[in-house]
């Protein structure tokens, strides 16, 4: 049984169909990528899984429980924790206290929570900023803080919403290493990313969305070859030319 199972998930906003009948699995211990062009419905799907939205139809199963429509905090308590695409630091608290809030999910008393927070802070290389107010960090550091905070909850499944968007080349490398290390610790990852290049080398499986529907699923190597994916990203015209070139 997979750690996360999405079954026939559909989300409508009025007449707008943001997600239509999407199903996929996230295997325990893997990195699963969720990609697609802007407006493909990635963030909506994410919000449905993490409990921010209640899906119109379909089911979300996590670790064997049906979590469809659960409020976000219950989903988080069960071990599926997310970050936000538009970062949401707790502005008036220090960087360390931000991480500490996450750590309190599993550690009830202060001393052990402090240890966990410390670990997670170091893991994300944020120890130099520990006493700064989270609101005063640069955007790149805020993204790292989101990650550190989510990690401090000691999740089973970590859902990252575009943590790598907007990072420079060197930062991107660093971030990819970080994700691999997280995976090595036994945390399952579901990563939404707009930039394909960042995900392809590290993902075990990739799910591709376009226009609210799943158009492909498989190992990264197969996905980059898939015509529908290329069409979705680069347009029909380019995809036809690519095919002509190949033949």
């Amino acid at each position, binding site marked *: 049984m997979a750690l996360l199972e999405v079954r026939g998930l559909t989300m409508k906003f009025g007449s707008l169909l943001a997600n239509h009948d999407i199903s996929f699995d996230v295997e325990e211990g893997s990195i699963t990528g969720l990609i697609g062009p802007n407006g493909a419905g990635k963030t909506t799907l994410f919000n449905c899984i993490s409990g921010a939205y209640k899906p119109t139809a379909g089911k979300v199963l996590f670790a064997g429980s049906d979590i469809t429509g659960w409020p976000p905090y219950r989903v988080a308590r069960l071990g599926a924790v997310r970050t936000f695409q538009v970062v*949401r*630091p707790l502005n008036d608290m220090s960087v360390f206290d931000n991480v500490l809030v996450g750590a309190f999910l599993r550690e009830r008393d202060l001393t052990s929570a402090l240890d966990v927070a410390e670990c997670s802070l170091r893991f994300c290389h944020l120890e130099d900023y520990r006493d700064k107010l989270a609101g005063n960090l640069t955007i790149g550091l805020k993204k790292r803080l989101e990650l550190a905070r989510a990690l401090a909850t000691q999740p089973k499944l970590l859902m990252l919403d575009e943590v790598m968007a907007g990072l420079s080349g060197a930062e991107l490398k660093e971030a990819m290493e970080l994700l691999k290390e997280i995976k090595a610790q036994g945390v399952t990852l579901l990563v939404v990313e707009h930039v394909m290049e960042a995900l392809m080398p590290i993902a075990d499986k990739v799910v591709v969305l376009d226009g609210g529907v799943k158009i492909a699923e498989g190992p990264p190597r197969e996905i980059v070859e898939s015509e529908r994916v290329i069409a979705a990203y680069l347009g029909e015209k380019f995809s036809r030319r690519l095919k002509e070139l190949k033949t």
Partner: protein
Amino acid sequence: MRHRQSGFGLGCTIFGILAILPLIPGPLQGPFAKHVLVMVLLFASMSQAWNLLGGYCGQVSFGHSVFFGIGAYGAGMAVVKYGLTPWPGALLGAIIASIVSLVISYPCFRLKGHYFAIATFAIVEIFNRLFMVWYWVGGALGLDYPIIEEGWRNFMWYETKTPYYYGAFALFVLVFSTARWIERHRIGYYMRAVRDGQEAAESLGVNSPQVKLTAMAISAFLAALCGAFFVQYNLRVDPPMVMSLDMSMRFVLITILGGLGTLWGPLLGAAVLIPLQEYTRAIWGGLGGGVDLIIFGLLIIVIVIRQPRGLMGFVSWVVGHRARARGRG
């Protein structure tokens, strides 16, 4: 780890100084000075009770005089109607205040911004008028204490104010210790997380409605205890004395002046505002009334505009400035 323990020594020092304050000979010995000191400790405690919800948890309520009033009526009813000591009344009042606060705030927490603020105004006005016509609790006339034996059992004294001072001090220690305990405990971090971003907090497993309700219940409980002290000190209570918008505002203003969401802000705010108000009233009372409040009003305007972080902001600026100067030198 070090910065987490700092402040403990400061707290002990402050408690220690306040404990020996009435023993120091000099200007603090007069009955008026004692009265001012009692008021400072009472309003510092009350503002801290408000601060737990408004400052730490970010839910700005203008309705706290209702809980203050329920506590006052709890003690008052026990003494005046049932001939008991005020203690069981104070405790029962505090429990009822917590329950009332939960019943009221459960729906109100759905409201945002000004809608929430105005709802809390409305609640104060409703309670004020209901108590005005509620015959059982004395209606508009309120409750007047009979003359009974003084001492700690009945928590009342007619001549001396020193026991009242220590009563207020005990209350102060209770409220501030609670606040400090919360500040360094899981619930305290969760409260601040809810204040700074409900959505982010919930994504980290924080049950924000529950956190807000917990903060509300604790805050209302402590506010009611402060109200019970207030009635014992005045030996009478009526609705406008305790349940009014002006009373609610005082708790808010003292906290804002001192520093919202800080541990020592409410004490600092009360230590500045209460003497200012009491002394201006005493000195300029003959000028036709209202002078103390004219000054008070102007002061609020200046502080809100010039120093939004309150006196604690000023203090930390000075401390930081000196630390920087030391670092350079």
